[in-house]
């Protein structure tokens, strides 16, 4: 207990800073992932022929070793937060893209026909039918991405991006297990917290299909 208190006294501010960096890197990457993957996913449902190819390419990217990807971006983007964010962004793509594609693709065809037959435009169909109904599936992708990214962001320390990975690598280099824990535990907590919060967001975004009045009736 004393050790813990001492640790916080010595490293408290660093921990806060590293946690912030960590969160920052991962969240920016996820956000970029959403911004790119959701529209691309929707687009793929409109050009079926390209869908398979694109998803396959993204799947292949996913299999690259993360360390290699990070290293790969150094010559292009240098060191620091940018290459880390870009690399993580690539990783976030697949789950979000795939889930968006599947979610939109799985919209009941009858609903689409009804909507189109009643005179909804393509955009109206996407925004008032397909997207709302696909929210749970898309959000599942976002949650998976976020949790993975928070874990992988520890590796960003390698390219000088900072984050909780700094603690872990310091610990490894200095043979100080408590430093490894100081990096690992907060990163785990962050991941769990992010998943929890996104779960709430998902609930909020998912359109209701039941009237509360009826449930209590």
């Amino acid at each position, binding site marked *: 207990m004393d050790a813990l208190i001492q640790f916080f006294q010595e490293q408290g501010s660093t921990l806060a800073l590293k946690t912030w960096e960590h969160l920052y890197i991962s969240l920016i990457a996820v956000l970029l992932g959403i911004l790119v993957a959701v529209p691309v996913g929707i687009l793929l449902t409109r050009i079926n022929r390209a869908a398979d190819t694109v998803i396959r390419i993204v799947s292949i990217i996913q299999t690259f070793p993360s360390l290699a990807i990070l290293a790969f971006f150094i010559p292009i983007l240098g060191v620091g937060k940018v290459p880390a964010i870009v690399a993580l962004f690539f990783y976030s793509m697949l789950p979000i893209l795939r889930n968006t594609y599947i979610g939109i693709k799985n919209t009941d065809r009858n609903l689409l026909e009804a909507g189109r037959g009643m005179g909804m435009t393509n955009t109206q169909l996407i925004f008032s039918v397909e997207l*709302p109904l696909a929210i749970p599936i898309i959000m599942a992708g976002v949650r998976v991405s976020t949790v993975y990214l928070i874990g992988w962001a520890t590796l960003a320390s390698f390219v000088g991006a900072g984050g909780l990975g700094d603690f872990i690598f310091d610990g490894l280099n200095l043979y100080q297990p408590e430093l490894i824990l100081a990096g690992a535990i907060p990163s785990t907590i962050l991941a769990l917290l992010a998943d929890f919060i996104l779960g709430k967001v998902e609930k909020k975004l998912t359109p209701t299909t039941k009237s509360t009045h009826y449930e209590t009736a």
Partner: protein
Amino acid sequence: MLTFENVTKIYSGSKKAVNNLNLQIEKGEFICFIGPSGCGKTTSMKMVNRLIEPTEGRILIDGKDIMKQNRVQMRREIGYVIQQIGLFPHMTISENITLVPKLLQWSKEKRRERAAELIKLVNLPEEYLDRYPQELSGGQQQRIGVLRALASNPPLILMDEPFGALDPITRDGLQEEFKDLQKRLGKTIVFVTHDMDEAIKLADRIVIMKDGEIVQVDTPDEILRNPANEFVESFIGKERLIQTKPDVTTVGQIMNKIPATVHKEETLSTAIQRMKEKRVDSLLVIGDDQTLEGYIDVEDIEENRKKSTLVGEIYETELYKVKEDSLIRDTIQKMLRRHTKYVPVVDEQNRLKGIVTRATLADLVYDSIWGDEDDN
């Protein structure tokens, strides 16, 4: 109202789904497209709101070529109901009903008002407007589906097997309700079905299709009475043809053409002898040229045989008779109600043509009950 002019649809590479379709549909008409699967009935309907685009020919609504109009705009002016109902699960009943008005940018108040007005048409409580589709039964959901098509008050409504997914009892009720609604609102309906009973019940005219072509277009009665060919006959179904026989069969078709008669100039003894021969208890009395004068039965002869000698002196003239083209179903009803044993059949000049007896009816009933088994 709606015109198909030489409309042909060819799906890429394959045969013609619809071949040279010509059809004129009047305002307020209820038209059923019917045929086996793949006959082109659904394709024909979906070409009207351009969910499928015709390869050749023109489709005109109120004289305007649909291909020359804005597709989205045009669809908003045509009601559309699909088989799987297709209510949006994430919208309330009210939002579902007023989807097209929303697309047409009606104000919120006006939409709500319209939804309340519509839901009364199908006798559902107004509270339902705030519920979600999954909280309603299948029959209620399809009522909402129909209301959704009516929301912006379009003159033309397309319906793709709208009652096909419902259980028979619900379907029956909804058909009646809808037919009634259609008559009241004077909508033109194009209705696709594969259920002949449904078509007969609902349609003003039925369009029977096969292999992309129209086989017969006519009123349900006319199709039952005069099926255009064997295909139509088999499609209507033998069973239904027999069942509907009493509906459309005329007296002329089933009457006994050689009734037992006696001329009014003949003697009573001739009459009684003829009764014995034919094993009947009454005879139809005819004059010259086969005109029907009345009847005479065994009691009349018994009472009067001492006083008179000629049939003409005692026969009774009070007689219920029918024309050859009377419907058998009306005749049956009247016979049963009057407790008469037979009805003579006459032509326009009152000449005796035949007779319908209770035995004839027994034959008819026998046919409709056992007729099928005889074929096996």
